[in-house]
């Protein structure tokens, strides 16, 4: 990531752009902002985004929201897409994982090893904290999540899959 004093203003604006499907996380929390560069004495900015999933419907909404947020402070905004290296949940910060937990979503358990054979088990129920959890379905309400259930409090919850 390119983080220079001159692009701090852009990073600040980006930190306030929420993920449209998991609004507790910003696009910076998600780890999809790969680079921010300013040009022309701060009148122009270029942001490089890396999509989370190939077909995630939020990708185009995010690009639009990023553009709108930056246009409030820059004359020219370039939003670029970079596919390689592919996004991974390893790029989410610990703070982002805490936010997910507070929102009722179990964060990805552990780092990603390729090939992705071990898809991980949520460390604990995000509601009651019990480690006794079971998978209900490998796919959930968005591409990034699976549906699990706590065996202690019996509540179903989302698990943000390792990816």
């Amino acid at each position, binding site marked *: 990531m390119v983080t220079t004093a001159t692009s701090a203003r852009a990073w600040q604006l980006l930190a306030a752009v929420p993920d449209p499907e998991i609004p507790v996380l910003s696009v910076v929390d998600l780890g999809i902002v790969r680079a921010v560069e300013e040009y022309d004495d701060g009148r122009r900015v270029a942001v490089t985004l890396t*999509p989370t*999933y*190939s*077909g*995630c*419907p939020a990708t185009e909404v995010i690009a639009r929201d990023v553009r709108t947020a930056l246009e409030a402070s820059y004359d020219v905004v370039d939003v670029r897409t*970079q*596919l*390689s*290296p*592919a*996004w*991974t949940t390893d790029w989410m910060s610990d703070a982002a994982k805490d936010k997910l937990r507070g929102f009722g979503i179990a964060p990805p358990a552990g780092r*990603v090893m*390729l*090939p*992705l*054979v071990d*898809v991980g088990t949520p460390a604990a129920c995000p509601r009651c904290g019990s480690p006794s959890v079971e998978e*209900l*379905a*490998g*796919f*959930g*309400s968005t*591409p990034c999540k699976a*549906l699990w259930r706590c065996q202690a409090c019996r509540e179903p919850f989302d698990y943000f*899959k390792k*990816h």
Partner: protein
Amino acid sequence: MSPTSEQLLSYADGALVLSHRLSEWMSNAPTVEEDIALGNIALDLLGQARGLLQTLGDEDQLAYFRDGQEFRNPLLCELPNGDFAHTMIRQLFADAWFAEVWADLAADNTVDADVRGVAEKAVKENAYHWRHSSAWVVRLGDGTDESHRRTHDALDALWPYRGEIASDHWYSRVEPVLAHATLTTPGRDAWTQRSSSDGWHTEHLGYLLAEMQSLARAHPGATW
């Protein structure tokens, strides 16, 4: 060796056509969790197809304005859904094919960076698809008498379509799952369909394209 644009087109068309087939299950899957799972897998495949088509030309032109003979998807991908067992055997075969396709592209430093980027992403998405299809094939094959019979029927019906996607690697992935599912294949040497690489397709593709392409063709150039 770098893939040719014809090969990339076969991967893109395979993902696009299979995505459309899976989308036909929406609101009709056996359970709501399966509806969601098949929808998620269809969405991943659609994104993978778009990513590759964008490197080959205008994605809308390629998806909506080519006729059947110009599509290069493996025949397996265009076959009708049938019952849930058919859909899961078809998915197992396709997932095993894509596993090799994406891994090879992701490891190939000579391919276009965007193609490699699509593949790096797809490798991980495919791992979840394979986990889903292989678990279902075992559950259905090693399940009740009826689920075993119907899954075996599906295997017998789809095995002849493996020819253009099966490699040693493919067999080494698929055969242990089928064995675990107590299903017996007709064997590696059994007869197989010819490939689709010259534009030869089953009669099913035309109907699929008629539905997939009708809106874009009725309103050419339309935008949201």
